[in-house]
């Protein structure tokens, strides 16, 4: 290395010697000596000589001058020469940053700031790429507080040095000082990005965030700064004030607990910073602010085991809460005092002390003091004013804190004189006027304040109080108060809002609920809070919480209100008793009422609860006597209360003394009492139960008071139900008359869901069973989303039940069956989908789940029990069965359980699991239900044992079925099949007799069922190859139920079979007759009918009819299900028409051969086709 260097040096020296006038060579030599040679002064001197020579030879070489400058400044320490050399270098090349920086450093050392600025400016003016100059200039301008110039220079410099953190920081500072905060934040952000440890940038950007109100971001910045520099007081200060800002935001939302948590953190931080710098007044002031806010927002928290609160616990918890607030206020005051001690010239600290001591006074309840002496709050407020008499804020503070109204007014007016647009002063002035009863002036002041600053809460509250006192437009009052509460969640506003909500009917509003809950946190010692909270809970049916609240209200009333007025106690106690009674706790309610009675405070409402509680506890005599007391007072009550009292009395009379006595008493009562819709319902209901219609005149006159459409349709449904009872016999309700009434009512009110669903329900319940398809149509599922519990059944329940009851209305897929039902029920709703929708809306609804299971089972049966559906059903059923509601022993519940067990059993049977099938069925047979239902459990057991070949048990179950009997024909028919198939020994015609017996009950469908029975018998005969008797049975069946295409088809087919066996040719014409009937009767063209008909006609020699029917047959099949034989027949048909060249028909769309090939392709296992194919090919 050294040698190489030497060689290069020697070579250069030789070249220089050779060309002593070449400046470039000399410069190179100088450079080599300067940089690459030993760091000795000697070498430098030599280098300098060469530079000098080079510069002399070529005075335009700026770099040579730069190095000379370096030499003079660093080696020979000749500052003047150095300066000159640098200047020369710069004048040659203004972008030479080394020279520039060196020059400026020299000037800086010499304290020649103006020269420095001039040098930079000159360089920057000469070249826009002299970034060093811009940077230097920018720093200098920042130093000289020339912010806008600095921004320009720095912006330019940043382009040259984009990664220089200092530069960005300086730029941020300049922006900050110019008030361009977002730009400043960006610059600081860039600084932190480049160097994450820049505490200054972090703190400054944090401060800006606080100023802009983004406290959260500010807090993050300060936290980061503190991680780098844990002793940084300004970061602590910023963090504490950021947390304070966040907490105030929360408090304005009403999140007191959240605010308190943040303030706790803030006070920790503030404490740390006071330890670090205890002599800064602003830190003490901040600490005071934090403590003051804490005292103002610390919430009272209801303990969670709160339902059984007793008075001592409650008092203790209130005391504890108050004490916390009090201590915080004291600590705030002390902090302010410290701050004042450190900076006694700051007037605002005086007002702070004034405010905090005022808070201490209110918490300490020292309000009844002597009015003549000056109190500390007033004194301190005056102290502030002595320092700054023209500060209007201080005047307003004095106005709020002063004890004398005159002084208050004076202070506020004085504030307004200083600034007439002071909204706060106007607002407080309004409050003052209102207190003094000068409403007009108050209103003016509030209006004034609101027009200046609509975001101030007080004037809105004032306005709402105004509305309230005028007792008109309470909605407007509510709205204004709501606005006040939303702007500032103050307890007084919140309680006012809740009271207005009660008056104006906004009781379900969430805003009000939130407000009263927040009020409870800040004023747990106000009985109103708890009482109102109780009322709101009660309106939401949360009686337990309501009871707890009323109890708390009473504790608060007794413990914290100065003078307990009896009417307050009575109101709360009656609320309590009512809630207890509604929660089902009659005993406690009774106790409350008795206490009230002892004190003579029991009013009409109390009496109602009293009587009701007696009745609920089974003490009928006392209940009646209280009812009598109540009746005595009815005439003096206001109308609404009178109506409820009368209805209660009527109901009690009916429930305790029975129908006759109730009717007689009602007849004795004066008619004026019944002028209310509420009573109308009750006496209508009583009248409906009364066969002799004694109340007819009373009822009809009271019905005049039904006003709304809703009430009228409810009355119609009640009348319809009444007709069921009145026109029905002892064992059977008169569904027809109910349905008739509902139809008329529905004609008047076509959009009443209540009437529709009741009509659907009645149609479904009708024992004739032939209106089910209408039932699903009359209730509109699509129009109502909410399955509200209106009436007895919801539209969804009727749809689901109807779909199960009416097989035709649920089967929709022709892939699985061809419905022959003449009702033409199209599955327009899609019951399963609708039920799923409903279940999605109300997943807890057991009835809907049950109906879905039944519908799914129907679907599974239709689709021959596919595996996946069976799994779903199994899961659904097992969960439904485990539901606790089936432990209930009433019949509807047990019936549902029974059906579910049967479903489970059926699914097991189909899945081949006989053991669980038998288990479920046995369970089902032990359910407490009438025999007619249990029959089916045993029927299922028969089937299960039959599958297991357990003839003994089968016989047993069969006999059990015969013993139990059912009124469902289908049950008997199934039993018949089992009997014949498994050759169960029995008396011959007991089944037929039973069937006929149960058919008698349903006259409309008697023939139909007998037809089906004959069908069953004929099927049994066919199984035994006895076609002749089968034909006889079927002929009978067709006679009884001629419109049923299914029966006709069977008859036709049997006749064909008989004809085929050659027994008699008359069977052919019989077959043709039946099949033609079947063809005509079926709603959807049935397959096979036409094919058979074609065959029969063909056999009789009518070729045209054969063709016509075959063509018909083609269209009766869904495309994907056409059997091979159909293609084969079409082949024959095509061949026939090919001869006639008839191209318009369906068979001619392809050649006969193709038809034939399709037949083979569809069913390649048929030997007949292959044989024929051979013939054709050959």
């Amino acid at each position, binding site marked *: 290395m050294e040698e190489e260097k030497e060689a290069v040096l020697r070579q250069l020296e030789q070249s220089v010697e050779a060309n002593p006038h070449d400046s470039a060579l000399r410069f190179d030599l100088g450079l080599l000596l300067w940089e690459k040679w030993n760091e000795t002064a000697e070498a430098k001197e030599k280098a300098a000589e060469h530079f000098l020579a080079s510069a002399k030879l070529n005075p335009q070489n700026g770099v040579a001058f730069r190095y000379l400058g370096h030499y003079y400044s660093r080696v020979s320490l000749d500052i003047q020469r150095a300066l000159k050399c640098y200047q020369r270098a710069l004048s040659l090349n203004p972008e030479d940053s080394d020279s520039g920086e060196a020059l400026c450093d020299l000037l800086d050392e010499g304290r020649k700031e103006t020269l420095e600025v001039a040098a930079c400016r000159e360089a920057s003016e000469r070249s826009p790429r002299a970034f060093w100059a811009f940077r230097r200039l920018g720093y200098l301008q920042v130093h000289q507080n020339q912010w806008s110039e600095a921004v320009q220079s720095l912006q330019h410099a940043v382009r040259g040095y984009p990664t220089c953190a200092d530069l960005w920081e300086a730029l941020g500072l300049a922006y900050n000082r110019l008030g361009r905060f977002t730009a400043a934040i960006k610059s600081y952000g860039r600084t932190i990005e480049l160097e994450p440890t820049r505490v200054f940038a972090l703190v400054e950007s944090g401060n800006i965030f606080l100023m802009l109100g983004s406290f*959260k971001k500010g807090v993050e910045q300060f936290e980061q700064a503190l991680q780098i520099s844990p002793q940084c007081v300004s970061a602590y200060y910023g963090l504490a004030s950021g947390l304070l800002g966040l907490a105030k935001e*929360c408090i304005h*939302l*009403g*999140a*007191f*607990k*959240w605010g308190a*948590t943040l303030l706790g953190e803030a006070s920790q931080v503030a404490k740390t910073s006071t330890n670090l710098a205890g002599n800064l007044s602003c830190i003490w002031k901040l600490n005071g602010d934090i403590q003051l806010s804490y005292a103002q927002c610390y*919430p009272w928290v209801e303990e*969670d085991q709160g*339902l059984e609160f007793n008075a001592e616990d409650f008092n203790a918890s209130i005391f504890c809460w108050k004490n916390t607030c009090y201590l915080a206020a004291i600590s705030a005051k002390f902090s302010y005092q410290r701050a004042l001690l450190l900076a006694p010239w700051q007037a605002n600290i005086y007002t702070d002390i004034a405010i905090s001591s005022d808070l201490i006074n209110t918490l300490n309840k020292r309000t009844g003091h002597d009015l003549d002496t000056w109190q500390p709050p007033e004194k301190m407020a005056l102290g502030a004013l002595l320092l700054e008499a023209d500060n209007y804020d201080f005047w307003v503070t004095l106005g709020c804190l002063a004890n004398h109204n005159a002084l208050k007014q004076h202070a506020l007016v004085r504030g307004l004189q200083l600034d007439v647009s002071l909204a706060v002063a106007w607002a407080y002035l309004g409050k003052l006027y209102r207190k003094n009863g000068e409403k007009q002036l108050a209103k003016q002041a509030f209006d004034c304040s609101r027009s200046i600053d609509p975001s101030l809460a007080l004037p809105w509250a004032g306005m709402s109080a105004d509305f309230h006192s005028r007792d008109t437009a309470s909605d407007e009052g509510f709205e204004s108060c709501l606005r006040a509460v*939303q702007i500032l969640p103050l307890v007084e506003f919140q309680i006012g809002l809740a009271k207005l909500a009660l008056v104006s009917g906004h009781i*379900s*509003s*969430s*805003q009000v*609920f*939130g407000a009263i*809950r*927040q009020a409870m*946190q800040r004023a747990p010692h106000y009985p109103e809070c708890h009482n109102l909270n109780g009322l709101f809970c009660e309106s*939401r*049916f*949360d*009686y*337990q*919480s309501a009871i707890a609240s009323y109890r708390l209200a009473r504790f608060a009333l007794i413990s914290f209100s100065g003078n307990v007025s009896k009417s307050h106690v009575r109101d709360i106690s009656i609320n309590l008793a009512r809630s207890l009674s509604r*929660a*089902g*706790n009659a005993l406690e309610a009774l106790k409350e009422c008795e206490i009230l009675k002892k004190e003579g405070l029991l009013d009409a409402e109390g009496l109602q609860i009293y009587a009701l509680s007696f009745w609920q506890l089974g003490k009928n005599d006392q209940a009646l006597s209280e009812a009598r007391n109540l009746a005595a007072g009815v005439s003096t009550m206001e109308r609404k209360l009178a109506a409820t009292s009368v209805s209660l009395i009527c109901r009690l009379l009916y429930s305790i003394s029975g129908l006759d006595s109730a009717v007689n008493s009602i007849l004795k009562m004066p008619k004026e009492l019944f002028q209310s819709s509420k009573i109308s319902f009750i006496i209508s209901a009583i009248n409906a139960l009364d066969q002799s219609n004694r109340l007819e005149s009373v009822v009809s006159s009271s019905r005049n008071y039904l006003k709304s459409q809703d009430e009228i349709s409810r009355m119609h449904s009640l009348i319809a139900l009444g007709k069921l009872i009145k026109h029905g016999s002892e064992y059977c309700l008169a569904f027809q008359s109910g349905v008739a009434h509902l139809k008329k009512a529905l004609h008047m009110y076509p959009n009443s869901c209540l009437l529709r669903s009741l009509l659907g329900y009645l149609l479904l319940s009708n024992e004739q069973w032939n209106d089910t398809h209408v039932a699903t149509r009359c209730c509109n599922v699509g129009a109502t*989303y*909410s399955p509200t519990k209106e009436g007895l059944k919801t539209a969804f329940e009727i749809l689901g039940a109807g779909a199960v009851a009416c097989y035709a209305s649920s089967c929709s897929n022709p892939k699985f069956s061809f419905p022959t039902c003449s009702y033409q029920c199209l599955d327009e709703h899609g019951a399963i*989908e609708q039920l*799923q*929708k409903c*279940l*999605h809306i109300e*997943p*807890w609804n057991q009835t809907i*789940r049950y109906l879905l299971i039944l519908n799914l089972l129907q679907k599974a049966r239709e689709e021959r029990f596919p595996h*996946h*559906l069976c*799994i*779903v059903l199994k*899961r*659904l059923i*097992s*969960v*439904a069965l*485990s*539901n*606790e*509601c089936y432990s209930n022993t009433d019949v509807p519940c047990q019936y549902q359980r029974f059906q579910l067990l049967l479903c489970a059993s059926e699914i097991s049977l189909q899945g081949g699991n006989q053991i669980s099938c038998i288990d479920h069925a046995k369970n089902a047979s032990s359910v407490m239900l009438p025999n007619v239902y249990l029959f089916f459990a045993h029927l299922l057991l028969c089937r299960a044992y039959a599958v297991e070949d357990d003839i003994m048990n089968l016989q047993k179950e069969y006999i059990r079925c015969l013993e139990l009997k059912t009124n469902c024909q289908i049950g008997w028919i199934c039993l018949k099949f089992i009997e014949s198939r498994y050759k169960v020994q029995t008396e011959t015609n007991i089944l037929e007799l039973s069937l006929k017996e149960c058919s008698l009950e349903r006259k409309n469908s008697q023939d139909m069922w007998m037809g089906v029975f004959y069908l069953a018998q004929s099927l049994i005969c066919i199984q035994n190859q006895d076609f002749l008797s089968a034909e006889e049975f079927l002929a009978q069946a067709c006679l009884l139920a001629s419109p049923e295409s299914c029966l006709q088809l069977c008859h036709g087919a049997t006749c064909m079979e008989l004809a085929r066996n050659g027994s008699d040719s008359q069977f052919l014409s019989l077959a043709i007759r039946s099949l033609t009937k079947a063809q005509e009767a079926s709603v959807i063209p049935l397959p096979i009918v036409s094919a058979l008909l074609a065959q029969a006609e063909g056999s009789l020699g009518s070729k045209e009819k054969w063709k016509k029917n075959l063509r018909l047959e083609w269209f009766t099949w869904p495309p994907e299900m056409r059997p091979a034989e159909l293609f084969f027949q079409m082949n024959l048909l095509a061949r026939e028409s090919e001869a006639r060249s008839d191209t318009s028909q369906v068979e001619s769309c392809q050649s006969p051969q193709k038809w034939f090939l399709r037949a083979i392709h569809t069913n390649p296992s048929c030997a007949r086709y292959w044989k024929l194919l051979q013939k054709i090919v050959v």
Partner: protein
Amino acid sequence: MKLAGLKSIENAHDESVWAATWVPATASRSALLLTGSLDETVKLWKPDDLILQRTNTGHCLGVASVAAHPSGMIAASSSLDSFIRVFDVDTNNTIATLEAPPSEVWQLRFDPKGTILAVAGGGSASVKLWDTATWNLVATLSIPRPEGPKPSDKTSSKKFVLSVAWSPDGRRIACGSMDGTITVFDVARAKFLHHLEGHYMPVRSLVYSPAEPRLLFSASDDTHVHMYDAEGKTLIGAMSGHASWVLSVDVSPDGAAIATGSSDRTVRLWDLSMRAAVQTMSNHTDQVWGVTFLSGGGACRLASVSDDKSISLYDYS
């Protein structure tokens, strides 16, 4: 802030669409919209033109809820018969099938880190937590029964849990029940913390603010949207305006706005600083079951799904 309609697909499913969520983008593809419907399918859509990527079948009753893992690789769907199918988003391979008694699975949500799947346990009155590595049940957070001397009626003693939400730090779970209470749990200790009161009808949707772990939004059948301080159990804001049940709520990624879908067939955008609805979209013709914001990566999107079988996509700015 405003919403601008981008694209609407009529008849996106054959039946009512009940659930929707965004699957986050992965290295190889952009984010996808995942929807579940009564027609027993789950579909994947590619924004912004909502091109159908794939249709997953296999559920036996309507799909009630869908959830996407934060990695964007896997997703889960649940149906009325309470099978949860966990699948690979890109290949549709089944990763796990979680089984619970029917009615004991309702809403699904992955935690922000993706290690736990929380399942609103419907009739079991609990939230079930499944480990996403082993797919084992790791915890059951049960709602304690009310202590009252005697429950007023049989149904109220057991709550049906409809909805569930994770706080953005993953430390809390909130679940909403049919009686209107919201319950908050501590996840790490698997412990019940407290109830949030204020709703009195079923709470069908819950979401925490992404900006503030204490802030919880709830949508209820009582037509209100509530804003809670979930730690301090305080109701701090109520927004009313929907004419019927509020079925779904989601917060915008910046935490400044929420969107709601309702039975009144509208989608509303609410400005949280004003606590008022700033925009109402009424392009759906039936109740809106789901609204969901897409966060991350450029423009912000909102998707809504409805009983009218359609899906709508909006731009949020």
